[in-house]
């Protein structure tokens, strides 16, 4: 089973490339303190060195003379963590809402779906900005805010799976045995409903990274964290003379999001063989 999964996943070449790159980025993020033990926001050289101009700073320096490569490496850590945590928040809310709605049906379903509609109506980024503005620009608030606007697709997917599964024979058997609702939901239906949810969660990670980068770009990011979005925002003033300061972190965001999307596609192929070639 596991071997089969890996086989199907790696048959998708794009997904394989994506996985390798993301592993690389993750490794970089984990090893950041070893590669660049000093504070990445420290001024180390003359300002606005173009990439390649000084071999010691392969990606150049920014307007203050900070090493861009060091900031990218440390930024990877913040960016990936925010993406993962926000996606976890969205998945927990989405699975919780979707599973309850799909399993119990009736008015519970009605309320849950109205709530989903509500959160789809509110313009997502404006909502995130408002939450962060009112509750404060901390990492925790940003992660929760992104999770709050990202859970609806996961809830809909989980609900659909639960609707399809809740009256199947194995569930009826569990009920006949006197199993409680909680155990049936968590232990019996959820494992069967998970594959498409996992695919969506991996895509939400990519979406969350884009969200965070926009929030940081607009200057509402956690001031203690130099995520890639903030680096783009910082470099914005200098696009006439040194546009590379802005370009490099953007490329980093794009590659990471691209690879996460590729992984999502690969997971989709591997976990939902029925949907292949769609």
């Amino acid at each position: 089973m596991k071997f089969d999964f890996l086989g199907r996943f790696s048959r998708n070449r794009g997904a394989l490339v994506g996985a390798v790159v993301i592993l690389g980025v993750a490794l970089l993020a984990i090893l950041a303190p070893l590669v660049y033990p000093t504070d990445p926001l420290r001024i180390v050289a003359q300002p606005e060195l173009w990439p390649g101009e000084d071999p010691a700073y392969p990606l150049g320096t920014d307007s203050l003379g900070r090493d861009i490569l060091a900031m990218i490496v440390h930024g990877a850590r913040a960016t990936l963590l925010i993406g993962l945590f926000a996606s976890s928040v969205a998945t927990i809310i989405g699975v919780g809402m979707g599973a309850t709605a799909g399993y119990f049906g009736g008015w519970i379903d009605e309320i849950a779906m109205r709530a989903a509609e509500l959160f789809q109506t509110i313009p997502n980024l404006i909502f995130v900005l408002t939450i962060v503005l009112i509750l404060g620009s901390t990492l925790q608030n940003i992660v929760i805010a992104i999770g709050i606007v990202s859970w609806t697709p996961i809830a809909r997917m989980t609900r659909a799976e639960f609707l399809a599964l809740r009256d199947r024979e194995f569930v009826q058997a569990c009920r006949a045995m006197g199993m409680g609702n909680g155990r049936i939901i968590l232990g019996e239906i959820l494992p069967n409903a998970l594959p498409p949810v996992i695919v969506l969660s991996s895509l939400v990670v990519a979406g969350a990274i884009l969200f965070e980068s926009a929030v940081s770009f607009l200057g509402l990011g956690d001031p203690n964290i130099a995520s890639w979005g903030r680096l783009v925002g910082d470099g914005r003033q200098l696009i006439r003379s040194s546009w590379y300061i802005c370009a490099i972190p953007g490329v980093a965001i794009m590659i990471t999001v691209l690879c996460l999307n590729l992984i999502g596609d690969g997971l989709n192929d591997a976990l939902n063989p029925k949907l292949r070639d769609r």
Partner: protein
Amino acid sequence: MAGGLAVSSRQLAALRLLRRRLIQAVPLMLGVVVINFVLIHLAPGSFLELMTAENQVSDPATVALLRKTYGMDDPLWLQLAKYVWALLHFDFGFSYRQNMPVLQAITIHLPATLLLMVSSITLAFAVGVAAGVVASIKVRTVWDTLVSVAAMFFFAAPSFWLGIMMIVLFAVKLGWMPVGGMATIGGGGGVLDILHHLILPTLALGLFYAAIYARVMRSSMLEVSQLDFVRTARAKGLSRRQVTVGHVLRNALLPVVTILGVQMGTVLAGSVVIESVFSWPGVGSLLFDSVSSRNYPVVLGILVLGSLVVIAANIAVDLVYMWLDPRIEIR
């Protein structure tokens, strides 16, 4: 009604749909308002203190007025009721920064944002559908690959970054496009001038959605072209082109229109970021300004009115959907 007696059953159905959607919009709007209210009360410290401190209001009479406006001394449920009541009368409060009612501050900026939204959605729809159709007709050829690579690229690029890069290339290096704003300062202005300023922001915002529509359109075309009625159409002797345009395309558009409806809120939110990149004088710029100056009433007003715009846009999309697919009756 001008035109006469015959209101067709289609029109009647459309009217019924409209009524139903409007009724459904009421609890949605109420939900938005309640969320807003909760946010206000989650704010650390008193909302009033923050607001007066940020805007340096010290006049006791003004503070008393604010206390009354926001009903700070009432029990929570009464505050909520009053808040809803005020919003029902389009009273969103007063913005000291602009020195005008919040509603007025927002409506001044709304047309620019709507223009950007409409042009971006139009671009996204046209480019996305065209690319998806090409990819599906030329499936597994260079064209198909080209479309999917481009779609992957634009789906992953942060729109604000794409915007900045386009400014660097087309405005700073090549000098073809203006760097930002909506009209040339001191210039004659006019429609052409605005359109010239509109091109880059539209591309920056629209290409992300074009990428989504291209992917959905491609798979939807491939799926529909395998259905029975398409085989029937081919069998009765219609040309490939007739079948593609008249049968496959029309049916394949449905999922794209659905997504379009779901994403209205996202497009509106996306324009916030793009406006800040291009100094486009829309609601996004106002929001950005209000966020930096912690002008809460305006931010909350934008959230409520933004949701209203999304609901209206969703209703419009529903009507389009019904027009595209006569099978859909109101459920």
